[in-house]
């Protein structure tokens, strides 16, 4: 068995695979200045990508969150977003309200 077939060898491969794109992004970013349309576009692409992942993590989770009914997850997020908007775009109250609502819904349903 070669080193790369052991768990530690696979970790070296995992590290290389994960770091490759980070390093490529860092190298390519050397050609980009902030407050330019190209930079704005890069931020937009990342915003869409990360935003999509986050929405998916709520609506179609691969974690234990999937045990919670979809309606409860959506309702808790709607409460969180409503509080966020009512409190003039303050993030912490929105997150606290959303998370607390989900705790209450889970306890209420006995999931």
């Amino acid at each position: 068995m070669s080193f790369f077939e052991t768990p530690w060898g696979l970790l070296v491969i995992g590290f290389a695979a994960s770091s490759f794109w980070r390093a490529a992004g860092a190298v390519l970013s050397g050609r980009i200045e902030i407050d330019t349309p190209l930079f704005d576009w890069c931020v937009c692409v990342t915003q869409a990508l990360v935003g999509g992942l986050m929405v998916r993590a709520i609506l179609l989770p691969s974690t234990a969150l999937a045990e919670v009914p979809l309606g409860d997850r959506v309702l808790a997020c709607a409460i969180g977003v409503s509080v966020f908007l009512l409190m003039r775009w303050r993030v912490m109250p929105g997150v606290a309200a959303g998370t607390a609502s989900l705790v209450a819904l889970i306890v209420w349903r006995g999931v």
Partner: protein
Amino acid sequence: MADPSDGEDRGRSGFLLGLRDSIGVPVVGPIAALTGYGVMAREAGLDLLLTLVSVATIWAMPVLMAFAELTASGGSPILVLVTLLAIGFRNLPMSLSAIPMIRRKPGFRWNQILLAQLLSPMSWVQITVFGRQLEPAKRLPYYVGFSLVVLAAGLFGAWIGFTLTLGLPPAVGLSLLLLTPLFVTLMMATSPKLSSRLALVFGGIGVPVCMQWHSELGLIIGGFVFGTLGFLAARMRDRLGGSGT
């Protein structure tokens, strides 16, 4: 002549500000998320040291989960490399758009590769949204302080998941899994740029749909298409006489 201690003070205050801002949701989120990874790694047969080193080195939840799964199933090195390269692609645009915010001088420096290694969605959103409000000299130390605490929180979460059986009430444990996506989404919504907010809305709707078609390709294509759509929509609004991009 500029006083060098002035730069040091700015660096220190930026670092301390980053530490301060990381306390709260930015710390609880990774603890909750990585607790799940700790449990998964233990069940996959990884030892504690390997689990913690994997968090510190890979530092990307989807890649970590695939790593644990592939290690447990005895995946070949080539399969692991190709799969993790495909999953890890999402780190490229994150790194591409975060590094220009924190670098001190234009152009590429080798230490930026190390800085990119600390990136997570939490630190990305913090530096690209909140970082704009900081003076440029404070952004790098701020990012380092913030990211190190988030990384430490992730390691702590993985340790908890690996060593402690889940003693949390199920309702709290499940709700903590909502914390990170909700926090990151709301933080992104506070972006001062209309183009970014539109990209978030379009991506939030379109990317999960694309991922139903193909989980990895859908993410990449959806990110490019809907991000570009947000960018173009904001520019079109500008041309029609609006403002705010």
